[in-house]
C-alpha cells in the first residue's frame, strides 16, 4: 500500500482523475483541496541535477526558494545581513540566525502554517544542525504541488526522500540526520524575494 503514497503515483492519479472527471470543478471540496498547493513549484529534479554548473553552485536555499543564482546563496547575503550564528534557530542580537537572514531576504516567517500551503507563494521549511562554528549548518525543504516535500542537500542532487528513504509528507517528522532542530515554516512570495 505504501507505493500509493509515492509522489509520482499521486501525480499520475491526479492526471488520470482529471481526464475522466471533468465535473470535479463543481465539487467545492475538491476545488479547495486542489487549490491549496497550486502555487507551489513542480518537482523537477532533472533541471537541477545536471552534474555541473546548476547542481554544484546552487544549494538548499536556492532550491527551496526556486531561485537559481549559481552563487550558493546564503540567507541574508542579498540584504547585507548574512547569518553569523547557526547554533540555534534564534540567536541573541547582534548575531544573525539563518531565519533572520531569510527574513531580511523577504521570506515571510509562518510558524503557524502547520504544513499547509499558502494561498499565494509557496511553503518552505528551515531546519538546523546545531553544533559549533565548524560543524553547524542549516537546511531548507520546499513543499511541492503534489503536497510532498523535496530538498537539495548542498551541491548534491535534488531528492524527495529523507535519510530513511521515505517520501517527505512533513519535514517536522522526516528523518533529517543531524539536522535535529526544526526552526519554522516560511512563505516564499514569488518575485518578492532577493537572494544572493
Amino acid at each position, binding site marked *: 500500500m505504501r507505493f500509493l503514497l509515492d509522489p509520482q503515483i499521486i501525480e499520475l492519479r491526479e492526471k488520470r482523475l482529471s481526464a475522466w472527471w471533468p465535473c470535479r470543478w463543481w465539487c467545492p471540496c475538491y476545488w479547495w483541496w486542489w487549490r491549496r498547493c497550486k502555487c507551489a513549484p513542480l518537482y523537477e529534479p532533472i533541471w537541477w541535477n545536471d552534474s555541473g554548473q546548476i547542481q554544484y553552485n546552487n*544549494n*538548499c*536555499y536556492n532550491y527551496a526558494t526556486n531561485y537559481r543564482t549559481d552563487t*550558493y546563496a*546564503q*540567507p541574508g547575503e542579498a540584504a547585507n545581513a548574512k547569518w553569523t550564528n*547557526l547554533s540555534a534557530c534564534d540567536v541573541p542580537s547582534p548575531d544573525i540566525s*539563518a531565519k533572520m537572514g531569510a527574513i531580511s531576504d523577504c521570506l515571510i516567517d509562518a510558524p503557524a502554517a502547520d504544513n499547509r500551503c499558502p494561498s499565494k507563494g509557496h511553503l518552505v521549511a528551515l531546519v538546523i544542525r546545531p553544533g559549533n562554528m*565548524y*560543524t553547524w*549548518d*542549516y*537546511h*531548507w525543504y520546499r513543499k511541492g504541488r503534489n503536497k510532498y516535500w523535496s*530538498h*537539495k*542537500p*548542498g*551541491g*548534491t542532487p535534488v*531528492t524527495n*526522500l*529523507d*535519510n530513511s528513504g521515505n517520501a517527505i509528507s512533513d519535514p517536522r517528522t522526516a528523518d*533529517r*540526520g*543531524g*539536522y535535529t532542530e526544526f526552526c519554522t515554516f516560511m512563505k516564499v512570495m514569488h518575485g518578492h524575494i532577493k537572494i544572493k
Partner: protein
Amino acid sequence: MNECIARALVFSGRPDPTWKIEEAIVKELQKIWDSLVPMQREPPSAPPLGYRGCLIKCNSDIEWYIYKNLVTLKRSGKTESRDDSCRKFEKLVISSAPKGLVPSSLIEDECGQID
C-alpha cells in the same frame, strides 16, 4: 600542470570545505585507483543529509567521487566504479585537507572512525 581541487560534501547550506590536492597526492591516488578492482557488489549510497562523500575535480578532465568503499572515476564522458574495501582512497583524500578544515566529527558520525 594537473591541478586538482577536492570538496568534502558535508554541508547543505554552508559552502562545503574545498582544498587543493598536491600533485604527489594525486599520483598516489592514481596508484590506489590502479590497484582497485571493479565494483561488483551493491555500491553504498550516501544519505541526503550529512557526510555524502568527497569530490575531486582535476583540470585534466578527470573527476572522482568517493564514498566509503565506492570510488567512481569520470573521464572523457566515461564513468567507472571500483571497490576500495579498505577505504584507502577516501582516507588519503580526507587526510590531504588542511588540518581542521574538514570537521572529522561529521564524517565519523556517518561512517565510523576514518583514520
